[in-house]
């Protein structure tokens, strides 16, 4: 069994590891694309959980609140880009889902947000400041949708620091 420590997510103050992942079968999205504005990175285990309790569907509804802070959001799971594409269309998502698919979970591992036993991402949230430093992170129990309140508190704190 993976130890708690092996699964520890990156803490505030650490430079966010760069990534370059497919958002669609022919489009790559990189961390550096978001420099200059806060970025929310939401790792989650899998596409297609029931809609009324789905984390990505919730963030989709909360997008206007994120945008008040000029923040962008990306979701990351190990699902492939075709799967993400179908899921995003089905749920009418207005933000990119990135495929941490090959090598599987490589980005999640860098953030300490990979579940070795199940081979999926944790439910882990990161707020990255405009310079690329992690300003807040949170690891949720994998079965509990963490909601958006922690993210908004973190964005508020980031805005107050300016």
């Amino acid at each position, binding site marked *: 069994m993976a130890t708690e420590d092996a699964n520890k997510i990156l803490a505030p103050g650490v430079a966010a590891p760069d990534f370059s992942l497919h958002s669609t079968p022919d489009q790559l999205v990189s961390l550096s694309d978001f420099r200059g504005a806060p970025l929310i990175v939401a790792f989650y285990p899998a596409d297609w959980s029931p809609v009324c309790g789905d984390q990505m569907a919730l963030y989709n509804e909360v997008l206007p609140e994120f945008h008040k802070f000029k923040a962008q959001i990306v979701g990351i799971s190990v699902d492939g880009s075709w799967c993400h594409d179908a899921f995003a269309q089905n749920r009418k998502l207005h933000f990119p889902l990135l495929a941490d698919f090959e090598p599987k979970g490589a980005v999640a591992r860098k953030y300490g947000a990979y579940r070795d036993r199940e081979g999926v991402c944790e439910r882990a949230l990161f707020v990255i400041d405009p310079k690329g430093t992690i300003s807040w992170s949170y690891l949720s129990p994998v079965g509990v949708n963490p*909601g958006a309140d922690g993210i908004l508190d973190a964005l508020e704190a980031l805005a107050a620091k300016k």
Partner: protein
Amino acid sequence: MSPSAKLKPPVGANDHVQGPAKAPVTLVEYGDYECPYCGEAYPVVKALQKRLGDQVRFVFRNFPLAEAHPHAEHAAEAAEAAGAQGKFWEMHDLLYENQDALEDGDLVRYAQALHLDVPRFVKEMEAHAYVERVRADFRSGVRSGVNGTPSFFINGARHDGPFDLGSLLAAIEEVA
């Protein structure tokens, strides 16, 4: 953030409330009129109110998942429009009892059935007079840690477990 998500703001004068203000238990639901799980929760809340009587105060706040449920936003506005004419709960019940029929025409039909001032209802619906009220509820839900629908808060703390009658009663017994 879970598991300590707390209701913000607390229940106040603007809320839709059933039951006495002094009841030892306050149950708040953030709900969506088109959400099937909220539809399942609707008779559960009724049964719970029947069981607990004056011991429980029930509050409903809007949390329409408008991207997922295309009728949810208008339905929420319709309940508020009915509320402005003193019939919030009657409309709330009609909406949950008719979740498959939430087109704008249906909403007007329910306004007629409730003997509302229909021209006023239609005018307010067309002007989206209560959209800000619905958004304010939604925003308060987000800040309270609502993570899907329905989300229940028992005396201000988010209830993370299942919401069948037995589970809710057990959770209520723990705090009351």
